[in-house]
């Protein structure tokens, strides 16, 4: 008895394989002794699932640049595990190997410079890792989707996805719980579902679903027999039951959603913020506003007490650059000044100033920016280091954030009146250029609207008021929903155009519309982001030196944006173009203003029943703005004409290109053939003859001999009526085209099959053909005088072509000239080349899978029978 080591494949092979090889059942003999394609197919399935689900992160992260590190990490982990598995490493080594490769891949991708040899982590790496993690946590805390893909957040995502690959893989294969592996994939999908307004998105869902199905399929094909014994039995009802279950589940889901309240506003349909670090609510600008406002529960509650007569706006940050796809605050780190003891607004106005003291408690609110009433003069009581921007007076943490801060803000603002503002019509001077710069690519509708609205207004103030009044008019509706449904949630100039068309949106749209329009009218402007005046809590807070002050509170639902316009001598003046939000300042209230001051009605549009009654219902159709539609047509028309010409040119080029390609090929061949006065190679001319025949519908067959093809061409009638009695034999009765084709064939045959340096044997007695057999006899070589210039390959080809043309129908002729089949078929052949490779691979995979499946089934049967 030999003691050959028993090679077991699969984790449970030990139980089914007897130790004694002599009593080894035949089933084992036929079992492949390597794991085969299994680990690779499995790894692909897991990689597809995780990388596919990660597609959903588009929108959480901006752009697609982040995807390539994510993809490589996932691949690296999945395939290193597959390699280990293919080498039959134990389970724990496979997992450890996956982890190790994850670490190496991350190091290589993110810390190449700070590691040993580019991929081995060192202590230096750890320092940077910490930095990256801090960056990532800041991003998560403070920024809103879509966040710029900075290295920190991308590294975090890569790491998490890498770990998920290991988890999904472990669940699916060694642990044999493939269905459970969906949890890992779901964990990826939750992030975009929570964070993005559009939820997961088609890409992410499809990617995840495909990967998950692949995992299920692979585990079905490859799992060792014992485990699938129960459910591999043929069951005719399986599909029917599956269909019924799926249909029931789907119906139930669709029904429940309509019955249970809150599904149209909750976390999933519109999205919300992801708060893995607690209930922090960052307030970076812009998009997060919409999400914050839509949040069903207020988060990031801030309480403040103030000695101002009315609750002030709390301002965090401003947005002043209106270029680009997505607006974000410009931090201007270089010009920021440290310390908050004295904040200088740079304002030396002669107007009476009002000093307000506010005590703020930020609680759980987490943001790099500090909310403060405008214009802060000094902030005291802060922990950590803070800096402020002289241009915008935004206060930002240097190494800290707003969480758990209690501080006292002294703010100073001029006592403004409508009269003062009306007089402030001096030319603007002394403010940074960025507040004046008109954004590029302003949508036409914004410009025309601004012009139309401010027509007749002379001073900056009247223009500002006109814009504000226009936006507050009944034509506009405050709505948190329509931007989501209309797909223009977010910010940027294109969003603005949508807003002005739909006339429905929320504060960010109103504020940015006013800011941009003001700038177009020459008024410096910026968008302030912060909180609208909140609600009184009813409590009082005693502030040192001020006594008991009334306490107010705001939370994420009070998040607000408003425009600030600059007036010479008066500084930055806030306006309130958003209907039903905030408080319109007294100086911005005119008799003409339709609604006057309004309280901060938070509930409108959040509960649909309420919103419809509270939202201003337009009683008349909005007046179309003059010129809105006509002026836009002028320029685009020229562009359209240009495009049209371009398209026609392109079309012509496209139509001509097969013809051009054909002509090019012919020229090249003939020049090759006629090199050295007719003594050139015959093969190019022959190829040309074949292609010509193809073009005119007599396509050569690969298994056809040249002679047979030539004969077929000559008797097909494409070259003219074949002379009857000399079937296949060139004779005197043949027309020149037929003779030329025969001669070309002859030359090619002699070159291809004849002696390299022919002797006189054939040439001298070419007519010696014994014409008794069915084999086509040679055209006589003696017929063709090689020295005759008219017998050059080009001349013969021309003869053949003329003959073909003369005998073809119009349709065939047109096709041969403009869409020659010989060129098109070449293109067609090269077109599916990559697809063929893919399909071949798929076929091979399928075949392997089928074989493996048959093997497993046989084993199962044998085990059952035995």
């Amino acid at each position, binding site marked *: 008895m030999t003691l050959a080591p028993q090679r077991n494949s699969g984790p449970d092979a030990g139980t089914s394989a007897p130790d004694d090889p002599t009593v080894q059942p035949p089933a084992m003999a036929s079992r492949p002794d390597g794991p085969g394609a299994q680990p690779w197919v499995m790894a692909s399935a897991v990689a597809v699932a995780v990388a596919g689900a990660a597609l959903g992160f588009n929108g959480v992260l901006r752009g697609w640049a982040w995807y390539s590190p994510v993809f490589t990490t996932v691949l690296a982990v999945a395939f290193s595990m597959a390699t280990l598995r293919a080498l039959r490493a134990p389970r724990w080594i496979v997992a450890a190997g996956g982890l190790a490769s994850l670490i190496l891949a991350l190091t290589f991708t993110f810390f190449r410079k700070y590691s040993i040899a580019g991929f081995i982590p060192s202590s230096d790496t750890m320092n940077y890792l910490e930095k990256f993690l801090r960056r990532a946590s800041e991003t998560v805390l403070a920024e809103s989707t879509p966040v710029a893909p900075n290295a920190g957040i991308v590294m975090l995502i890569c790491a998490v996805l890498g770990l998920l690959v290991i988890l999904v893989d472990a669940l699916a294969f060694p642990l044999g719980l493939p269905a459970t592996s969906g949890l890992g994939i779901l964990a990826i999908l939750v992030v975009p579902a929570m964070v993005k307004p559009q939820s997961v998105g088609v890409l992410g869902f499809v990617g995840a679903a495909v990967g998950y199905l692949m995992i299920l399929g692979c585990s079905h094909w490859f799992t060792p027999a014992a485990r699938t014994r129960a459910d591999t039995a043929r069951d005719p009802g399986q599909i029917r039951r599956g269909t019924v279950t799926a249909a029931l589940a789907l119906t139930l889901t669709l029904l429940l959603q309509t019955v249970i309240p809150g599904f149209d506003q909750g976390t999933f349909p519109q999205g919300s913020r992801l708060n893995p670090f607690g209930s922090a609510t960052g307030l970076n600008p812009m998009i997060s506003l919409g999400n914050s406002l839509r949040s069903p529960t207020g988060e990031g509650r801030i309480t403040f007490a103030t000695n101002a007569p009315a609750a002030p706006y709390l301002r965090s940050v401003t947005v002043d650059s209106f270029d680009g796809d997505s607006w974000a605050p410009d931090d201007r780190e270089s010009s920021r000044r440290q310390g908050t003891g004295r904040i200088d607004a740079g304002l030396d106005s002669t107007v009476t100033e009002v000093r307000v003291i506010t005590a703020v408690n930020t609680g759980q609110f987490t943001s790099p920016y500090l909310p403060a009433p405008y214009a802060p003069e000094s902030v005291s009581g802060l922990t950590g280091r803070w800096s402020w921007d002289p241009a915008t007076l935004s206060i930002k943490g240097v190494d800290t954030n707003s969480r758990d801060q209690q501080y006292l803000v002294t703010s100073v603002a001029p006592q403004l009146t409508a009269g003062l503002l009306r007089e402030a019509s001096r030319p603007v001077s002394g403010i940074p250029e960025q507040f004046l710069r008109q954004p590029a690519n302003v949508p036409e509708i914004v410009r025309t609207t601004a012009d139309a609205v401010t027509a007749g207004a002379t001073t900056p103030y009247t223009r500002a008021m006109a814009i504000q009044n226009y936006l507050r008019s009944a034509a506009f509706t405050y709505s948190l929903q329509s931007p989501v449904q209309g797909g223009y949630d977010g910010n940027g100039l294109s969003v603005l155009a949508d807003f002005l068309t739909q006339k429905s949106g929320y504060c960010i749209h109103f504020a940015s519309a006013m800011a941009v329009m003001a700038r177009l009218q020459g008024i410096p402007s910026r968008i302030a982001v912060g909180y609208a005046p909140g609600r009184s809590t009813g409590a009082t807070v005693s502030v040192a030196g001020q006594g008991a002050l009334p306490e107010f509170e705001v939370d994420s639902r009070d998040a607000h944006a408003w425009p600030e316009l600059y007036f010479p001598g008066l500084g930055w003046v806030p306006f309130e173009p958003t209907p039903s939000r905030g408080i319109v300042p007294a100086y911005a209230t005119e008799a003409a203003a339709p609604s006057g001051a309004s309280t901060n009605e938070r509930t409108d549009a959040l509960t649909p029943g309420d919103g419809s009654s509270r939202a201003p219902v337009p009683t008349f159709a909005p007046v179309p703005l003059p010129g809105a539609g006509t002026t836009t047509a002028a320029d685009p028309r020229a562009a359209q004409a240009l495009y049209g010409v371009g398209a026609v040119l392109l079309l012509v080029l496209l139509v001509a290109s097969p013809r051009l390609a054909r002509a090019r*090929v012919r020229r*090249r*061949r003939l020049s*090759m053939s006629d090199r050295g006065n007719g003594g*050139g*190679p015959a*093969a*190019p001319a*022959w*190829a*040309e003859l*074949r*292609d010509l025949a193809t073009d005119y519908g007599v396509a050569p067959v*690969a*298994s*056809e*001999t*040249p*002679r*047979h093809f030539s004969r077929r061409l000559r008797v097909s009638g494409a070259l003219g009526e074949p002379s009857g009695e000399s079937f296949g034999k060139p004779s005197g009765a043949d027309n020149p085209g037929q003779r030329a084709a025969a001669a070309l064939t002859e030359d090619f*045959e*002699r*070159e*291809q*099959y*004849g*002696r*390299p340096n*022919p*002797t*006189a*044997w*054939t040439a*001298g*007695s*070419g*007519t*010696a*053909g*014994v014409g*008794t*057999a*069915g*084999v*086509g*006899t*040679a055209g006589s070589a003696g017929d063709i005088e090689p020295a005759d210039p008219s017998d050059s390959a080009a001349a013969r080809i021309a003869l053949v072509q003329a003959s073909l043309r003369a005998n073809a129908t119009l349709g065939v002729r047109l096709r041969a000239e403009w869409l020659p089949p*010989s060129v098109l*078929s*070449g293109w067609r052949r090269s077109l599916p080349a990559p697809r063929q490779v893919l399909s071949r691979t798929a076929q091979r995979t399928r075949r392997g899978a089928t074989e493996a499946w048959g093997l497993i089934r046989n084993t199962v049967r044998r085990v059952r029978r035995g």
Partner: protein
Amino acid sequence: MDYHRTSIDDVAPGGESFPGRPAVDSNAAGHRSSPHSPAAMDAAAFHAASTRILTAINTVIDGKAEAAQLALTVLLAQGHLLLEDVPGVGKTLLAKTLARSIDCSVSRIQFTPDLLPSDVTGVSIYNQATRSFEFRHGAVFANIVIGDEINRASAKTQSALLECMEEHQVTVDGTSYRLDEPFMVVATQNPIEMEGTYPLPEAQRDRFMARISMGYPDRESEMEMLETHQASSPLARVSAVVTAAEVAAMIATVQQVYVSRSIKDYTVAVGRATRESKLLRLGASPRSMLQLLRAAKATAALEGRDFVLPDDVVSVAEAVLAHRIILDRKAASAGETPQSVIRAIIAKIPVTPDVAASPNGAGRPARNKASALAPAPAPQLPNPH
């Protein structure tokens, strides 16, 4: 003598002798003048000679020009011919006519079940006068040997003939006797379903270069035959039109026909395809590839060319290959015949792969140049006069 235990070589010398058995009609007396290294002919002479032979055959057998050409092809390619058909369609007549039209030694062996190997090869007999053994030539010692109804003889006797066919020599009692050149066996056989036949095994069928089925003549030919052949045998009118030396020279000419590399590629592709075909249990042997190429060379020469075209290969492929391959049982029951399978295989193989691969014909000249630089595989023809 136990045919099942002993082979031809084991026959004891001087045991039994069968001189002049009636079945063996040997007129192999003279005409053994074939030179050992005959000079090749020029094209015109070759053409004239081949035309004479074919004309002679065609005057005797009506409407069988194709079979005649193929028979001549096999002769010139130094192969052996197997004529297989039902009795009475002119197999033997074709063989005899071919033999008669050449001025060379011809012997005819009528194979019967009791024919012995020594009848074919010859036997050593003891000469009382010289007190020594002397070798008595068997019927195989002739330029053209007609083996009539070869499948009626026992396997042992068949083998004796087939060894001679392959090696062109006879070995009796340890002495080898060279056979005359040209040497060609034209065997006829009835289809194996007929009574009292021993079918040729595959290995022995493989020795024949080509198998021809005569087929029934068409209506006109049959009428013509009835008209002309009533009075006298047409065979009597046939006289030798070429000499054995001429035939040898023609064979030498055929040997020098040039075979280009792409023809060899093509031939090999055909052979491989028969071995890979799912319809076949046994594909064509390498020997058959050699014979296919030789037959193609002869065809090319008969066509008046000194190089082989794929058409030459195609035209002889069916005759050369069909009797060597064995159909798969499924294919046979599906109504396929060896001929149809060969045709199907030929119809699938690209003739010149490089033309098919590059429709532009680009790159072809370079390849030709490369092959031109390679040493020419075939010897150059000597200068014709």
